[in-house]
């Protein structure tokens, strides 16, 4: 284990007289891996909830195949869930697991390379049959052939023990076997002193209509826990104290949940009814699912016939005075391009959520990437600027959704929010806000109700001098009838205009309106504790955690580095160019081939060093620490002894 100074406390006595010792750790990374049918995501989520309610800080990384049921027992069918939890504040799901639970040979084969030597490996011995081994090309059984000697391997018959525990449940073998994930969860809950009531309550709730299944799962869960307590296979259990957190009420939250709640909150705080037009797509569908549950808030969700209809219906709703929203992933944004430009031209508020995934084309549907930034910025015909914002962590998706709405309503413009697969499905503890403390967006909704022209006419393109937003007059309002559309508008009147001067003016005005948003977003947020770093790392979106963890390591080694993380990608904070100019070197890690770096170089003529990866997975903190260290050391010339790439966060 990577724990620093493991403190072995006095042994506790288990039934049967077994003396077990308790080791105190500051953090652990566990990876659960199994077949997609083994329920690893559910198990991981339950362990996460237990861990959250215990009070550890945590961060998770679900990783699953795009196929719903890839062939059983094969490498492509392996699904895993990594959870990092600690007695202190952490920022990533961990570079590598300390503990790997592999429910079958495929899971072992797919994940073993990530488990550092000496790590704890828990295997379901029952699944290591000749047939299953052959399926993934093991010539001999690794449990027996000595190839696992470099790890602390504990091979236990999880499946048969589950069956035994459920012998009297009345369930058939197939059905009973399915509870082996709960047996495993019970065992892990014992190993890490997790509270168990939450899982029992969860199972009761989940299988309300199938009490026998609920009972079987609870029995398997308890059997796993008791097994840990009594078996000699596990002599040690671990304690990870709660992390100090600011006082308050917390919950565990995934990015998609937080984003959905942020949208609900934005609707409530603006007073506008929400209309969501969406077409299902991974990893964004859960936002459609979640908002569909909240009809009692007056939220209308519309599953459209395609992504174009999703955004088109939202534009129609916005024209009618609703908060129009559309949610999708990269391929869907491609389809929405033309309608986005219509929203830009008609200057209607619209919130567009892109939960990015690996591309191009269908790409990697369930894996994360940040490669839609330039599409969001420029993926339309004509000069078609729109604001772009990005959340930095799962919980931050909540605030980002409210900020996107604020901009859309205030400036009467479509806004793209760039989340990604890692944020969407990853989770972390979240301090539950008090609704009354959330931004009040009612000021941004001032429907025009009276003509604004000198001759008593309504001028739909007569702008607010400060924000350059045009008035929002909704159907039903007498005397304000007007026509909008995609053809170029004459200034003020909004009539069709092909006049060269007018087009030049309107093009520049639309750009100025978006640029002007910078006045409302505050200066660049720079984390430079001593204020004398010569190297800055700049990032956006979900790389915040890994960059932050890398930065901590670098700082622990005695080096200095500034961290800048952008919420607003368009427009950038007004002082960003000046801020970047303060540093000798600027490093920009991204999960694409350098899209933000390209923008920064183009806009500020700063020699940004791009560090990129597109593996469908978040960066490892150690890798980023090494990159940053290299840049610092080559800048200052001073080699420092300490290696920042190891150690915790």
């Amino acid at each position, binding site marked *: 284990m990577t724990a620093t100074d493991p403190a072995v406390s006095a042994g506790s006595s288990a039934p049967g007289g077994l003396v077990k010792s308790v080791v105190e750790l500051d953090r652990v990374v566990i990876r659960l891996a199994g077949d997609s049918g083994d329920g690893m995501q559910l198990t991981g989520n339950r362990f996460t909830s237990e861990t959250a309610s215990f009070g550890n800080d945590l961060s998770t990384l679900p990783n699953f195949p795009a196929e719903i049921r890839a062939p059983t027992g094969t490498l492509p069918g392996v699904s895993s869930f990594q959870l990092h939890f600690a007695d202190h504040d952490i920022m990533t799901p961990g570079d590598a697991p300390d503990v790997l639970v592999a429910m079958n040979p495929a899971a072992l084969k797919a994940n073993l390379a990530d488990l550092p030597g000496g790590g704890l490996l828990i295997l379901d011995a029952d699944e290591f049959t000749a047939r299953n081994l052959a399926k993934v090309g093991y010539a001999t059984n690794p449990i027996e052939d000595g190839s696992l000697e470099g790890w602390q391997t504990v091979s236990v018959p999880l499946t048969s023990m589950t069956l035994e525990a459920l012998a009297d449940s009345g369930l058939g073998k197939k059905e009973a076997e399915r509870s082996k994930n709960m047996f495993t969860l019970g065992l892990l809950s014992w190993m890490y002193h997790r509270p168990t009531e939450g899982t029992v309550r969860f199972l009761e709730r989940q299988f309300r209509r199938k009490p026998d299944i609920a009972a079987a799962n609870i029995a398997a869960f308890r059997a796993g826990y008791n097994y840990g307590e009594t078996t000699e296979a596990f002599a040690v259990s671990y304690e990870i104290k709660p992390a100090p957190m600011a006082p308050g009420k917390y919950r565990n939250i995934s990015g998609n949940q937080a984003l959905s709640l942020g949208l609900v909150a934005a609707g409530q705080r603006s007073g506008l009814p929400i209309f969501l037009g969406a077409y299902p797509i991974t990893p964004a569908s859960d936002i459609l699912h979640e908002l569909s549950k909240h009809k009692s808030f007056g939220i209308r969700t519309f599953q459209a016939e395609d992504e174009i209809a999703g955004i088109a219906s939202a534009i129609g709703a916005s024209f009618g*005075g609703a908060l129009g929203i559309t949610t999708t992933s990269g391929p869907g944004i491609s389809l929405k391009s033309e309608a986005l430009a219509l929203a830009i031209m008609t200057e209607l508020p619209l919130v567009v959520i892109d939960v990015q995934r690996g591309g191009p084309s269908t790409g990697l549907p369930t894996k994360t990437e940040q490669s839609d930034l330039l599409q969001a910025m420029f993926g339309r015909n004509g000069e078609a600027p729109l604001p772009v914002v990005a959340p930095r962590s799962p919980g931050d998706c909540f605030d980002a959704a409210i900020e996107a709405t604020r901009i859309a309503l205030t400036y009467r413009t479509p806004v793209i929010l760039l989340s990604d697969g890692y944020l969407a499905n990853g989770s972390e503890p979240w301090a539950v806000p008090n609704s*009354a403390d959330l931004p009040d967006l009612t000021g941004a909704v001032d429907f025009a*109700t009276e003509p604004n022209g000198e001759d008593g006419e309504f001028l739909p393109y007569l702008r607010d001098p400060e924000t350059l937003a045009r008035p929002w007059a*909704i*159907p039903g309002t*007498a005397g*304000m009838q007007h026509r*909008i*559309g995609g*053809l170029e508008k004459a200034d003020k009147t909004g009539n069709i205009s092909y006049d060269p001067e007018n087009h030049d003016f309107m093009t520049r005005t639309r750009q100025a309106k978006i640029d002007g948003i910078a006045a409302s977003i505050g200066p660049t947020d720079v984390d430079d504790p001593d204020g004398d770093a010569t190297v800055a790392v700049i990032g956006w979106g979900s790389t915040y955690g890994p960059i932050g963890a890398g930065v901590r390591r670098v700082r622990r080694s005695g080096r200095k580095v500034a961290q800048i993380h952008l919420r607003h990608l368009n427009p950038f904070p007004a002082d960003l160019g000046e801020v970047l100019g303060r540093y000798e070197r600027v490093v920009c890690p991204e999960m694409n081939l350098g899209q933000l770096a390209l923008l920064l170089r183009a806009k500020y003529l700063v020699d940004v060093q791009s560090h990129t990866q597109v593996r469908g997975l978040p960066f490892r903190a150690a890798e980023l620490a090494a990159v940053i260290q290299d840049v610092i050391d080559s800048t200052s010339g001073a080699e420092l002894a300490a290696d920042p790439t190891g150690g915790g966060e």
Partner: protein
Amino acid sequence: MSTTEHVHDLGMPAANPIDAAIAASVATQGDKQTELKAKDFKTDQEVRWCPGCGDYVILNAVQSFLPSLGIAREDMVIVSGIGCSSRFPYYMNTYGMHSIHGRAPAIATGLAVSRPDLSVWVVTGDGDSLSIGGNHLIHALRRNVNITILLFNNRIYGLTKGQYSPTSEVGKVTKSTPMGSLDHPFNPVSLAIGAEATFVGRAMDSDRKGLTDVLRQAAEHEGTALVEIYQNCNIFNDGAFDLLKDPTTGTQWSIPLVHGEPLVFGPDGAACVVRDDFGGLRIAETNQVDAADIVVHDAHRQDSSYAYALSRLSSQDLRYTPMGVFRSVQKPTYDRMMSEQLDVAAAEGSADLDSILAGNDTWTVSA
């Protein structure tokens, strides 16, 4: 202000801002005007269709008949796509959106669903609605959202200067098909009925009375109504509907649809519609069949097979073209059902933001 009046001060505006805006406009401009004249629906915009275009005739017909519906101008929204026909909203003193090619039904759906108080219309062309926007059209129809769709069918792409369209007859010679078009056209009425439309009608641009009659029924229909309007493009497809417009051939080849009346047509009622042996319809000579066998038009039949069979009587060259309302049946509308779901949810569940922010599993860290 007494505090008891505001037990629940959540910092939210008192009323829904939409209702508040409408109320404010009534307060400053007086009650909604529903007694209007045709000229009230005209705008100051110069109409830019080619002189002689059928679109003018349709615009006039619409402006003349709208006052009879008693809908205030501000409560009407016309959404169009792209094409000559889609310029329509600019000439109507209502709310309007001239949107993007093919997407008007989807935009109108979002508007009609979130604002059931409005009268939402779509104006579209044969290319706009059946080619690039075919998907949105069929889904709007099957959902039965409360919108009225006017499909201006000139059997050509007018705005892009005369390419053949999805309703052009096979063999159509155009700039893009110098040796004749190869693909088989859609019959928009058949397509709509196949897409579960609850109201489908057809009318001729030049037939003010027939057009007005179908438009009125479409406007009064609750649910998606599709009206195919044959529209002459005198520049790129002139005379496309002359067969039906000519006083002589017109009577011979059009079948007027009047609910409750026998389907008899042609000079002196010489032709009629009877059932064939396969559950469909066929044309017969009136004096050759028993009067009891002549089909009596029933636009309200729930089963759409009859309306579909009617739509199949006509051929590409427009002989035997039924004109009027093919089908008009009642089905719950999408927008109404969605509103009902919201009402049920509101009655069953609370709308307490703090409670959903907290969710089911929280823990508290104390100081």
